[in-house]
């Protein structure tokens, strides 16, 4: 077992790669009541085409998420109920590129950890249980289809990408999940839930040796193959279409602007680009940026405006949006400001100040076990150490921001997605 100390942020992390290929991280946190376990697979809504037994297999939209719901079924009942009855608060999520199962508990942590490792590694599906889940998830899909934030996001993805699976909802559609059978679920579990494709991260006042002992006891002994997946041919850097528009029951137009970014290719570059991208978006459109302040003071945007850099499924992009009576005007100003940033680089005083603020935010995020575990897992899957973020950020320069803006905030390649009120 390796131990790493990060003095700058006052954290200590233990890690070990087990014989079966699973990597385990333990972040020791003292003085907390709770302990938190996060067991994740490098498999999400975008991983629809993959290799199994030497052949490429295409699966319907929504399988990763469906599988996440069904994994809680065990031969003896339901792990969600079992964990809850044992004092844990369990949950799970599926994103574009990760499926994670986690719980926090105050007591019986070790016992609960064994339940977690067991139900995630032992699939149990029946045609009846799959059919029942189609009802529940069908309702979840209907619910999210009514959410304007969801509609505006996928609208933008469709406006940006031609075929990347980011275009489609992680949960799929009522029609696509109707194609899922118990066999589909078993195949996907076999490929993606083998220990080599997974990571276990635990945070809290725990003994790291006990965590690895539990993983050795419960999980399969053999490493599986690392899955091969296909997100389709590389995308052009131009948007598929410049604009998406729909009408829904909303009170004020909701909008999201975006631009494809050049995806990073290796390990620490993911982290570097993520930090540069986040800081660049802060400088361009964050709450202290001249653009934000001008638009806010003019009443063009409100407090719901935000900006971010994102990476998933082999694709990266910058996005910004919120609510506005005049999204087209915001889009114009945003493109102008992006063009200026790329041409002139950031104001030195603003750059230093926002970098300092971001360093504070990084520290703040270490209060949250959820964030710590998620970032650790995500870093592991992409080949970097998330705890290095403070030192990587410290080395970011003004020129990095200018170069990022030039490459990734190209005002000519931007798309706009808008949800307009029904009766306007």
């Amino acid at each position, binding site marked *: 077992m390796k131990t790493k100390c990060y003095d700058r942020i006052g954290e200590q992390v233990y890690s070990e790669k087990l014989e079966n290929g699973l990597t385990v991280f333990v972040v020791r946190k003292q003085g907390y009541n709770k302990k938190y376990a996060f067991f994740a697979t490098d498999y999400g809504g975008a991983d629809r085409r993959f290799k199994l037994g030497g052949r490429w297999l295409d699966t319907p939209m929504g399988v990763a998420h469906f599988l996440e719901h069904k994994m809680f079924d065990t031969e003896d009942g339901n792990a969600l109920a079992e964990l809850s009855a044992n004092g844990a608060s369990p949950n799970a999520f599926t994103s574009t590129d990760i499926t994670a199962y986690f719980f926090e508990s105050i007591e019986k942590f070790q016992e609960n950890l064994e339940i977690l490792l067991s139900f995630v590694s032992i699939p149990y599906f029946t045609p009846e249980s799959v059919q029942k889940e189609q009802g529940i998830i069908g309702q979840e899909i209907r619910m999210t289809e009514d959410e304007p934030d969801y509609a505006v996001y996928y609208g933008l993805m469709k406006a940006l990408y031609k075929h990347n699976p980011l275009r489609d909802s992680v949960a799929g559609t009522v029609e696509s999940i109707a194609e899922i059978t118990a066999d589909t679920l078993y195949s996907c579990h076999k490929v993606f839930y083998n220990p080599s494709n997974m990571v276990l991260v635990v945070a809290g006042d725990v003994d790291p040796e006990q965590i690895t002992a539990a993983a050795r006891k419960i999980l399969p002994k053999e490493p599986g193959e690392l899955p091969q997946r296909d997100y389709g041919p590389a995308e052009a850097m131009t948007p598929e279409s410049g604009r998406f528009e729909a009408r829904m029951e909303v009170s004020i137009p909701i909008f999201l602007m975006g631009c494809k970014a050049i995806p990073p290719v290796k390990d620490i570059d993911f982290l570097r680009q993520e930090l540069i991208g986040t800081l660049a978006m802060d400088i361009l459109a964050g709450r202290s940026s001249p653009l934000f302040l001008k638009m806010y003071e003019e009443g063009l945007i409100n407090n719901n405006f935000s900006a971010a850099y994102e990476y998933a499924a082999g694709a990266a992009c910058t996005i910004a949006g919120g609510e506005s009576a005049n999204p087209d005007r915001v889009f114009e100003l945003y493109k102008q400001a992006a063009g200026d940033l790329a041409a002139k680089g950031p104001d030195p005083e603003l750059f230093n*100040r926002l970098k*300092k603020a971001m360093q504070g935010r990084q520290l703040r995020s270490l209060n949250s076990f959820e964030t710590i575990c998620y970032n650790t897992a995500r870093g592991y899957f992409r080949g970097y150490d998330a705890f290095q973020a403070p030192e990587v950020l410290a080395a970011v320069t003004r020129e990095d921001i200018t170069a990022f803006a030039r490459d990734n905030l190209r005002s000519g390649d931007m798309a706009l997605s808008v949800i307009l009120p029904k009766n306007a």
Partner: protein
Amino acid sequence: MQEVLRKQIMPDTHLTCVKTDKFKTCTLSVNLIAPLDREAAPKNALLPKVLLRGTAAHPDMAQLNAALDELYGARIVPLIRKKGENHCVGFLADFIDDDFVPADERILEKTAALLGEVLLSPTTHGGLLRADYVDGEKKNLIDEIRAGINDKRSYALDRLFELMCDKERFGVHKLGDEARAAEITPMSLTRHYQSLLSGARVEVFYCGAHDPARVEAAVLSALAALPRSGPATPVTTDVRLEAVTKEPRVFTDKLDVNQGKLTIGFRLGKSMLSPNYAALMVFNAAYGGSVTSKLFLNVREKLSLCYYASSLIEKHKGVMAVSSGVECTKFEVAQNEILAQLDAMKKGDISDWELLSAKRAVITSIKANMDKPAGLEEMFFDQTIASIKITPDELAALADSVTAGEISEIASGVELDSIYYLTCLDNGGDAHEN
């Protein structure tokens, strides 16, 4: 280790100080507690937003935000909360601990001073809050009130309480209504601001690694200009024990949605005469507040009727709501099942497994909240409003000793008051309109 200190630091002004070194940040909140009132509600909601636009020393957002950036990204966010029939407005600041700052920057004192400045020394024009800030934030407030409809789940809950408590102060939305918001002027807001500052009870909360004496000194210095002129407005909530009418009142809104929302409102009844909050929490967890609850296991998992069906309790007012997202054509089946599960609890149908699971859920949620700065803040604030003197640890211990009999006793007093359907345009709805 966690040490809690509570003391009065000025007339009608208390500081609760949780000393712990487990977090990397410190949290400081200031809350003014006013009665929830239809006329005052939009003014209360507007005030913190206007105050955050600029202070005498930092007269615009650019300067105020820059000051916060310089404090390593400290934040000051507005707080607008409804607790029973109290309207609580103020600010929550969080900032990193001195340990992680290169030199001796005294972030606590600087952030507390900035917070005090935002609360007490706004930028003014002719003695009034600046008209451009009031107008700009008024427009934002109206947008926010209208945007309530964007999230159908919370909108349905807001509508239920608005309709169910239309004759009670609790029926007032925490943002107020659009018409009254539109009437606010710099003059009316400034007057309201002055009376709120002098008349409201003030609760200050801190959690972090600093010594309580240092926190108290920083807060006293930051709040030195707070007018404390007379006895503060009392903190009260009128608790109604019975349903308004014998037969439940039914309300329906039609919207162009895929999924309907079924929301049912109850009065907690006689248990509110001397509330046992630990037992109420366990009751809620057993009925619909957890994944081992009757609603989750029966309405969602067994009947596969909906993605969510859950209950929540507003303990200050003594009301409960069940909210659920279902096909508009299946309202009746879902509603029957939701009410049948409550009837089962009234009859004492609570298994050992259900009781134990509900207790574990409550205890875990209390203890896990103690591990989050914002969770601690809310928990201590709630305790203050409800005049609960026990610590969260003691509350958790009490939850552990709740019996099935106590839960059934609570259930037996629960009365169905109102049902609210948010239904689709094309189908459903009609069958339920009595």
